[in-house]
């Protein structure tokens, strides 16, 4: 293969609130049985990349658990593998990852010991399908130094993204990170391709200068010196930074086009296999417009909701417009509406947890209600 992969799972989106209190952003559950990082990992594997490093430093327990075997993404190969790199605390002068450049620099031996010509860098929380082979081809055709996967977001508020100014050949002329008053509508999706050797020298140089950030210290600083191109991606792409965005994205998984894209289109999105039994719908069960994970047992009413694996729903309980994560029990006669209920929650009988479209009810992981 021509490339190795780096998945940066360092950032924490505080807007996700309690969802990321006990888990890394890359490990947030999505679409009944996936974790956010499954999308990037599957894209890598499905593009023929055999060697992937995930770099993370906060709340890595559930992420490490999820990535404990490389076989689910078909990355457990002789020539390849799946690596989870967390900050190394063994030396006398040790730091966490002080930025994206620092995360990669601290693991520069991963780059130096490879011989693939390219590196694909992406985030651990991006929900999309992408064939990186097309990206590599574009990068070569443009004879680019760095190519940024970008998306035109006409008419949307792009002030939370990195915004690119590009010329008619898609070469980047300018880049503004989270601009107050965006002048352009082409945003960076946080996925890059760069040749491995160039990346190594950029990392070493940037580190020497005491700089740590890929966007500000490499992309912006080198914007004139390097040939940086935008690769326009126009498919489905989400990156939930707040509970509201997370909820909205989860509900999109109930729509046919999104379901077809992620569940029924080969090559598939892979996740850790958990061997749950089929979902069981008992007498009195009513389910409409919902996704159910394996091992769900339902006795109640579920409408317009996303249930993860092993959720148990008691008699006469009603769940509407909600997301209920793995291994959670909803007691009898409960009413759950506009709620996001995290993993391993027990909601006792007769509880009412009702939010509104604008103010969702959130229940944290490992709690009893």
């Amino acid at each position: 293969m021509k490339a190795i992969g780096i998945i940066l799972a360092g950032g924490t989106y505080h807007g996700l609130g309690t969802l990321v209190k006990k888990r890394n952003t890359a490990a947030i559950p999505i679409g009944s049985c996936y974790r956010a990082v499954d999308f990037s990992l599957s894209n890598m594997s499905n593009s023929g990349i055999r060697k992937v490093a995930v770099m993370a430093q906060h709340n890595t327990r559930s992420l490490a658990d999820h990535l404990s075997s490389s076989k689910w993404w078909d990355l457990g190969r002789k020539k390849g593998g799946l690596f989870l790199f967390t900050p190394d605390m063994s030396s006398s002068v040790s730091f966490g990852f002080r930025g994206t450049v620092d995360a990669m620099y601290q693991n520069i031996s991963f780059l130096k010991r490879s011989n693939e010509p390219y590196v694909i860098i992406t985030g651990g929380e991006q929900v999309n399908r992408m064939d990186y082979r097309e990206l590599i081809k574009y990068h070569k055709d443009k004879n680019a130094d760095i190519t940024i996967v970008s998306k035109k977001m006409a008419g949307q508020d792009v002030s939370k993204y990195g915004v690119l100014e590009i010329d008619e050949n898609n070469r980047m002329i300018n880049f503004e990170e989270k601009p107050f008053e965006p002048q352009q509508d082409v945003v960076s999706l946080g996925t890059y391709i760069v040749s491995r050797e160039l990346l190594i020298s950029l990392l070493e140089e940037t580190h020497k200068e005491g700089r740590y950030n890929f966007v500000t210290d490499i992309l912006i600083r080198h914007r004139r010196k390097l040939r940086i191109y935008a690769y326009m991606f126009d498919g489905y792409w989400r990156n939930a930074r707040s509970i509201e965005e997370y909820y909205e994205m989860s509900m999109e998984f109930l729509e046919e086009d999104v379901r077809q894209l992620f569940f029924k289109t080969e090559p598939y999105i892979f996740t850790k296999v958990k061997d749950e039994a089929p979902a069981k719908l008992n007498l009195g069960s009513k389910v409409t417009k919902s996704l159910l994970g394996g091992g769900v047992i339902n006795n109640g009413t579920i409408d317009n909701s996303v249930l993860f694996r092993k959720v148990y729903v008691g008699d006469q309980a009603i769940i509407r417009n909600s997301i209920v994560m793995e291994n959670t029990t909803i007691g009898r006669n409960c009413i759950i509406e506009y709620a996001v209920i995290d993993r391993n929650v027990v909601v006792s009988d007769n509880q009412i947890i009702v939010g509104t479209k604008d103010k969702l009810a959130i229940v944290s992981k490992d709690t009893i209600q």
Partner: protein
Amino acid sequence: MAQKEVIAMLLAGGQGSRLGILTKKVAKPAVMYGGKYRIIDFTLSNCINSGIDTVGVLTQYEHLLLTKHIGIGIPWDLDRKSGGVTVLSPYQGEKEGTWYSGTANAIFQNIRYIESQNPKYVLILSGDHIYKMDYSQMLSYHKEKDSDATIAVLEVPMEDAHQFGIMNTDSNNRIVEFEEKPENPKSNLASMGIYIFNWETLREALIQSNELHENSDFGKHIIPEMIDKKMKVYSYVFNDYWKDVGTVDAYWQANMELTNTVPEFNLYDEFWKIYTNLDHQPPQYIGENARLEHSLISEGSEIYGEIYNSVIGPNAIIGKGSVVRDSIIMANTIVKENTKIDHSIVAEKSIVGANCEIGFGENIPHKTKPHIYSTGISVIGDETIIPDGITIGKNCEVSGNTEHSSYQDGKLESGQSLIIEEGIV
């Protein structure tokens, strides 16, 4: 040489002819069961859950799907550096090697495999049954009794005992007599076809039996001869769920039982999981106008119609306006819109057209195969296509790429077969 304490030899070569069209292209152990599983998954999962990491699977009849399903054993965690799962199909050697002619003959032909694992005990299993059993407890019992052979037995109702191989035991559970399907049974302890032998003893018995019988069989030869020789053969009583799903009716019934609110057989046991091989397990989607009650639905299925008392396999699609009742729909099968399916089994990768009725008509037994189809269940085989607007009666079997012209006035009357042979047989 490293020694394995116990290895399992799993007999999975049977056709299961009483399952009719369901085993036309696949061996019985590879027939789907309980939505996402195949029958052999229960035995394979029992092995790993009992701590047995070396399993030889003996295949013969239509082995392709079975061999693909097992692969290198990853889903059962049987991909091992030492041991693991090995598919043992009949082979030809310089002097020996031929089709497996009996259960013991099959093991006899694989003595070299067993020797290569150097076990102390050998557990003989079959891939035909639905049950959860901790073989390690049976092995402890075998050692405790210092037995030459231990046979797992099930207490069956006395009135059914004549259908089984019956063990007559003394007060210490030592087997004194074995009777195959006795007219007047003396006990109700039926053999489950699960045996543990000391390998040295079994090895000798296999070689001797093979000299005497062309079709050396455990039930007919090995066990009775060991009892005759006054060897120590003990019964091990198993008191839990065990189903032989060998007939269309038993198969259908056992699937239906899984949809009960609290089924006798629990698939949801966190500490005794049943593993299977699915390449991809997305969630199941239930559409806006769907109704689903008293049913099991498997990963990746999409339900737009109504499902009652039914078991739906992975990636099956049930179209809008269709009603599936008391039926089994297997993996990757599509039922189009406004079709009614009642008391029927639709096997894998089939397409049932729109506006069909399957399982409706007079309940008369099958004309030529009443021993297979007589309880009202109609069976649609693997990779079968049924065009729009067809009516199929009860106790029917249909297989192949059928077209409108294959039916008389768009109808297949109860008790009939319609089998279109494919180009590649």
